[in-house]
């Protein structure tokens, strides 16, 4: 049930991207490929999959890598639906749905593992939930940053034919600051919760290793970025570069945690 719903969700997100790609390079109509129709369907598929996962196990789905990746995919989808209230956000949707697709595919490839006994509490679910909200916001920030750099490049190099496909630099920068801010706050609280949980546990698990140090480094990176924006006026291009580099680092950590470690803090 869970796998079927996941594949349905994946199809809902891949089909419109494929349709738009075909429409761009071949003379094909792509009215049907609007993400505003398909993204909610994809979200519904992911929700069903997570519910199925939750009902077949005694732990919250996000505690496992598979469930966690799908939770993140769900949050990114929802984030895009909120973003799409601004004009000309279809390109951001394409980037974000590609990320969502990648997360879903990774979750399907990851073997289903049972969570360890230490992962069962509600507290850890909130810790993970907040971290996923942070990661989801940074994914949105990444898409906005890529669009900012693209639009800036077009304006600087006077390639003005396509500039109206994307939002204004001001809109992109403003939304980028907002998503980075939300992500940073969520990540800070999430990491702090995890830190105190680890301190309180007898094993101290989670206070070292790739995920811990990687997350702390990314947190530091975004902290520097936001501080520079507030104090030094590092908005626009600088903030966009911060957004892109930060999310790429996050992607590497998630990938390594999921594939190499076999769990958020080891198998």
């Amino acid at each position, binding site marked *: 049930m869970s796998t079927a719903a996941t594949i349905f969700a994946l199809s809902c997100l891949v089909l419109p991207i494929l349709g738009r790609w075909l429409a761009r390079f071949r003379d094909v109509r792509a009215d049907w490929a609007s993400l505003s129709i398909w993204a909610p369907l994809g979200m519904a598929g992911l929700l069903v999959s997570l519910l199925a996962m939750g009902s077949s196990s005694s732990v919250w789905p996000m505690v496992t890598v598979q469930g966690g990746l799908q939770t993140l995919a769900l949050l990114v989808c929802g984030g895009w639906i909120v973003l799409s209230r601004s004009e000309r956000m279809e390109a951001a949707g394409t980037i974000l749905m590609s990320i969502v697709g990648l997360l879903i595919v990774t979750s399907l490839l990851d073997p289903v593992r049972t969570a360890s006994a230490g992962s069962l509490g509600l507290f850890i679910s909130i810790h993970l939930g907040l971290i996923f909200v942070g990661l989801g916001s940074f994914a949105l920030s990444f898409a906005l940053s890529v669009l900012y750099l693209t639009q800036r490049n077009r*304006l600087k190099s006077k390639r003005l034919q396509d500039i*109206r496909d994307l939002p204004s630099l001001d809109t992109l920068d403003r939304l980028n600051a907002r998503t980075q801010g939300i992500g940073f706050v969520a990540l800070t609280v999430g990491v702090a919760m995890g830190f105190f949980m680890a301190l309180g546990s007898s094993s101290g698990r989670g206070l070292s290793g790739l995920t811990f140090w990687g997350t702390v480094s990314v947190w530091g990176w975004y902290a520097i970025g936001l501080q520079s924006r507030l104090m030094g006026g590092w908005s626009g291009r600088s903030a966009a570069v911060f957004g892109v580099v930060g999310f790429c680092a996050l992607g590497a950590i998630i990938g390594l945690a999921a594939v190499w470690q076999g769990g958020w803090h080891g198998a």
Partner: protein
Amino acid sequence: MAPDERLVAVGISHHTANVEDRERVAVAPERVPVILDQMCAEGFISEGVLLSTCNRTELYTVPGRNGSADRLARLLAETGGVLDRSLVDKIYTKRDEAALHHIFRVASSLDSLVIGEPQIVGQLKSAFRLAQTGNAAGPMMHRVMDRAMSVSKRVRTETDISREAVSVGRAGVELVRQVVGDLKGRSALLIGAGQHGKVVARALLDFGLDELVVANRTFERAADLANLYNGSAIPLQEVDRYLHRVDIVVSSTGAGRLLLTRGDVSPALTKRRGRPLVMIDLAVPRNIDPSVNDLRGVYRFDIDDLAQFAGRGKQSRLDAAEVAERIVEQATERHWKQIMGEQVSQELGRIVKGAEHIRLGEMARIEALLSTLPPEQSVAVDAMTRAIVKKLLHQPLHQLRAWAEDGNIEQAQALFTAFGREDEEDA
């Protein structure tokens, strides 16, 4: 009035004249009603609309007793105060159906510098309002303008002519908005009083710009412009001091040299703390060093960039223009017949009135004799004369109406002229 001139369009536009020549006949909005009133008073026109934009100055009119198309063309060449003979050759004249066709093309933006640009509709409406202010908009101009607006709407609805079409002013605004977003709360510095600069500044204000600072070589000119745009004026030498404050710089001076170099702009960027600065250089030769575009947070555009942006989708609009031309041609043929039909119907009333006037005159001549008759006989004579007039006019008027409805305007006009002559002879 020449009998064959019922509607005349005379004008000068970007097709026939350069900016300098167009500027010489351009008429400020506040002068339009005065000029039209004067032309009406001197009998050059009986009604008219004067359209003056940066791309054209045109007079649409029904010539008066002292007016003719050629005379009006000369009058237009004298708009600057003295007759400029070099301009006469650049002024075109269109009569009757061709004039209506031209007005429809102008209203549909088929005659515009950027085909499909939307501003012309508003400009035409403003020109008509000014004509109404000066009481120069008679029934013919009402008919023509109503139909021009309806044809323009049809062209925009049924073709893609307006899709992606923007004027230079709008192109400037769009480019600025691609960088700074909403113009609310933004400020701009206008350097110089060039036509394109004023157009862009006007468009920025129309789109919500909060503050405009005007700098000019002549401070009084800057103050005048600032007053017009509800902004503030500064001397040209103080431009550097405002670069860190404003979000947009529009330059269109005739200085013929660089006014803002990289060295002038660079220090202002530190104070801006990352806020982007859009610089639009509309001057030829340029006023803003092109290398400022390499500075972080600075976006510089020139007139070619605006033209490139305004020209987006040009081919699709040219294709749409072919369809639009056919719509305009069909509409011209149909509406010209209708307008003339309405004119004829109006004249029918005049003929009936004229005949009644003659009848009453004849009755007055035999008033003394009628007074000797008993009242019922007097009433019978009155009724009889009324019936004679009615029966005599019935067939010709019926024929006139039929010709008007069928669009046989020339025949209707001939008969109408015959009535007119009879009337004049009698008078």
